[in-house]
């Protein structure tokens, strides 16, 4: 009896020892930066004060300032529009390309490569390309619209509020849809062809097969990829920074852009960190929600 308990204790110690490196890594790489951000947000600290031995007084001023600034709520709204808009678009784009690539046709490998290509393009380069495409004078989009007679005068897409948001949403969706494509393709390969054939024999048309067989089979993949893509969109800085810089006015200023500007352009690290904490809380809410949904989906 004693021997058995001794062995169990030993086993528990061994397991704890094995888990120790992972726990330390989590503590070092995840908990420490979060703690640091929280600590910075609770002090009035400029970029120059970091690493200098200056005593900093505890203050809630950054949060007070944040919550009374209409600009913060505007940026939160822009974040929601950008994140939901670009993720939805990328989702549909990814689903369409995955359904296309799941079929057998000549040149499928080349098309697969072309579809995945935006994923390989660095975000900054991709955003620059979209910036040129939407250019008010020389952009390809304007050229096509003018040639087709859709518009009489070129549209300065990145200069008008609504068009600017639309442009950055489109550019970000273009950069992120290959992720959905890959995930959905993997999901589709799991789908049994017999199931689709059975539906076909039962008289289900292509749309009904998609709606009642294919999409339900992809639910888990959709949840995981959608959730990861939402988190990536919350963090995105490059697309907006390169294309509009948060403008015109502040029409495309998301929370991530504000954090970048406050910290690295205006050197107000404390205020930037307070917004970072808000972005973290937003992500945390999303994670908790997704975790609940996924738990229900996977484990009933």
């Amino acid at each position: 009896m004693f021997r058995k308990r001794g062995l169990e204790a030993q086993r528990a110690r061994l397991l704890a020892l094995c888990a120790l490196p992972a726990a330390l890594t989590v503590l070092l790489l995840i908990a420490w930066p979060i703690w640091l951000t929280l600590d910075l947000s609770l002090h009035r600290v400029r970029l120059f004060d970091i690493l200098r031995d200056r005593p900093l007084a505890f203050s809630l001023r950054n949060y007070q300032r944040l919550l009374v600034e209409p600009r913060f709520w505007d940026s939160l709204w822009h974040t929601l529009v950008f994140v939901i808009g670009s993720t939805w678009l990328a989702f549909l784009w990814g689903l369409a390309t995955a359904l296309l690539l799941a079929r057998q046709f000549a040149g499928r490998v080349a098309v697969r490569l072309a579809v995945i290509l935006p994923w390989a393009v660095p975000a900054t380069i991709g955003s620059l390309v979209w910036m040129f495409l939407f250019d008010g004078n020389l952009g390809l989009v304007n050229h096509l619209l003018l040639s087709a007679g859709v518009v009489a005068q070129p549209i300065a897409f990145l200069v008008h509020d609504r068009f600017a948001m639309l442009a950055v949403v489109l550019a970000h969706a273009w950069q992120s849809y290959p992720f959905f494509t890959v995930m959905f393709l993997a999901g589709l390969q799991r789908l049994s062809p017999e199931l689709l054939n059975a539906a076909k024999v039962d008289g289900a048309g292509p749309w009904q097969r998609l709606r009642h067989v294919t999409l339900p089979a992809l639910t888990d993949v959709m949840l995981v990829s959608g959730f990861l893509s939402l988190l990536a969109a919350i963090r995105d800085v490059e697309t907006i920074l390169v294309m509009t810089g948060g403008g015109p006015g502040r029409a495309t200023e998301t929370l991530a852009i504000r954090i970048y500007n406050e910290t690295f352009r205006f050197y107000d690290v404390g205020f930037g960190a307070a917004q970072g904490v808000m972005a973290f809380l937003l992500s945390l809410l999303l994670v908790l929600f997704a975790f609940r949904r996924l738990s229900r989906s996977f484990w009933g």
Partner: protein
Amino acid sequence: MIRTTRRGALALGAATLAAPALAQSQAMVLDMPSYQLREGFGPWWHAAAEAFNQANDGLRVNLIEVPYEPHHQQLTTRFIAKNPPDLCHISARYFYGFADQGFLEPLDRRLAAIGWKEVDFIPAQKDMRRDGRVYAQLLLGYSYGLYYNAAMFEAAGLAMPQDLPRDLPQLLAMAKRLTRDRDGDGRTDQFGLAWPTANSSATYAYLTYLITGMGRDWVEEGRLLPREVLQQALEAVQTLLRDGATPPGIDTNPARQLFWQGNAAMIVDGSWGVAYRKDSPEALKPALRVAPLPLRNQAAGPSNVLAIPADRPAERKDAAFRFLALIQSPEWQRKYGEIGGNPPARLGMVTEEARRLWPELPIFEKAAAESTSSFMPRGHEGDFSRWSAMVAENVTAMVAGRVDAAGAAAALHRDLTNTFF
């Protein structure tokens, strides 16, 4: 014996060959990252570094090219990490923040030792004082001109140079008149005056030209300029946009490209603008000229400076100062005009040779000497980034059509007042 002699000879040969390399490796290398190593200024920096390396055994200035924005971000990081480069080439917009944080070395003692006098330089050198001490050597003072395409003026029936605009209303009227649809496809392909209104600090700079052009300053006697003046300046921008005289939302480089590639009749730019002429089509070059800015006054002030960091060993700071002493000397200040075509900070250094090589130079030299307004918001230089971002936000809101000039002026005035006053 023969073997010994051969070995000795080999050793001697190897030592002879290795000596310069050894000396090179033992030289104190002074790192100087800069964003000015290509265009008009680049050849001057390279020549000065080469001359310094030749004249100073055991010392070598190592020029490292970094683009403008990353350069200042890297400098900030290196200052904070207490690992700054030996020579700090800084845009004046960032200088104030660095000096105020104590990152730069006061130069008074060393400058006094070489007989340096502030009065030998343009007035903007005085701005390099913080708390009464000198922290940097000014390299260039801002001065601007009106670049114009004489062929476009003549095609519009205007005589050159008599019909050049002489004041702001004339400039706006001329910009409208020179805006054309050359190929008749219903779209403007010749803009009257390329004017940046992007979400960048260039928008601040161009609005500043208008404010100072009206004889005003951002900060007057410690107070923000009146909202009405701001509105007048914004109305001028709105007029250009309404008349289609400039494409909306462009930044400086696209604006320059429009002018230097023959798609805009005018642009306001600094003395460095002349360097872009080399990229213009040959047939276009003779028509591209410069005239004094047709405004009452113009923005002046420091453009870029050379400083020494506080967080370096004393012997490295002494060595770095020797390079600073070289570039501020009359010889190298004269070469600043001759090699780069820009007016040097030291007064009276523009030579006949420089004037021959760069015919536009006297225009900028005169502008720099006459301007009295400041390019920077006086007393708020350390917060330039936030200030210029507020200007850009409100101007782009106007460009987007969300507000008119009055609305943009009111919002900008309120934002600046709430934040800085």
